[in-house]
């Protein structure tokens, strides 16, 4: 029997690995045979993730990705120690609701820093020949917010739109290095982002605004993790520069 999504021997860096999709994805990738390099801000929660991993050869690193200027030094130190990377999964991201009337530059910049700028910097560094293996796959978590707008989401929607556009440009530029770049456009999944939606706007609003359109129901983090694993694996070796929609029908 073969497993087309086998990741045995692949060294994959996952950001935002302490919770939500990042955590679920790290665990899932370890079950598929990957060695994980986990990065997150929260030390305690990150430990929780690493204890849930299968297999060996994993490492964890505390780093605040907002510290853009130090990402290169941070990554190269890790890569010097453990070897070149085969993949990057950028799950770190924030989704704070904020009406346009109080969406000032500082708020916008803060959202872009973690959701977008840190991703570009990670790819810039990892795509250097000395840092990536001969065949490398980059996957970033995007959202239906990239395509469909909503009240109070100017910053978030713009940051995800930026990611989906950047993926196309990067894919073309990095193809010569045999690096593929794709995003996963997720619908609403049961994560703490869902929990805060319910807390702030209520279940009734969620049913009315989301489940009415997302007719397969509320997704789970594993639904995104499976799409990510696919895009990391050789099963997707002919796929690059695309935004893979995993949304329970929301955008259809």
């Amino acid at each position, binding site marked *: 029997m073969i497993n087309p999504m086998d990741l045995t021997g692949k060294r994959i860096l996952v950001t935002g690995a302490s919770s939500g999709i990042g955590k679920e994805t790290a665990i899932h990738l370890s079950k598929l045979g990957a060695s994980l390099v986990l990065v997150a801000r929260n030390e305690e929660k990150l430990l929780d993730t690493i204890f849930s991993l299968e297999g060996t050869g994993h490492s964890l690193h505390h780093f605040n990705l907002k510290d853009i200027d130090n990402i290169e030094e941070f990554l190269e130190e890790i890569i010097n120690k453990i070897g070149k990377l085969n993949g990057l999964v950028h799950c770190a991201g924030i989704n704070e609701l*904020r*009406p346009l009337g109080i969406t000032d530059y500082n708020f916008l910049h803060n959202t872009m820093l973690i959701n977008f700028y840190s991703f570009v910097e990670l790819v810039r560094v990892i795509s250097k020949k000395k840092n990536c293996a001969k065949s490398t796959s980059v996957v970033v978590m995007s959202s239906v917010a990239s395509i469909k707008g909503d009240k109070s989401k100017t910053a978030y929607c713009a940051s995800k739109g930026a990611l989906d556009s950047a993926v196309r440009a990067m894919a073309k530029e990095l193809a010569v290095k045999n690096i593929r770049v794709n995003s996963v456009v997720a619908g609403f999944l049961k994560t703490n982002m869902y929990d805060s939606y319910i807390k702030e706007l209520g279940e009734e609003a969620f049913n009315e605004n989301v489940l009415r359109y997302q007719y397969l129901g509320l997704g789970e983090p594993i639904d995104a993790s499976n799409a990510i694993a696919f895009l990391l694996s050789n099963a997707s070796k002919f796929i690059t520069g695309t935004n893979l929609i995993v949304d329970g029908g929301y955008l259809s």
Partner: protein
Amino acid sequence: MELNKKLALIENILEAEVGKEGLNRDTILGEIGDWDSLTQLSLVIIMKEKFNKELTGSQIRSMVTVQDILDYME
């Protein structure tokens, strides 16, 4: 924060059209500006950032006058 600054902040969040006299404590929220879900979300965020107060949905829904907001601006 001084009272007139608090009132200016509320006036700004509500985009209240109040003329020269400005807001006073007894002004009914729904009568002078937009007191809708987006305005309420803005108030929640401002209260957290500037006053370190976490407002709940029911606290927001029970607010009727400007004084009801001022009560939380300590």
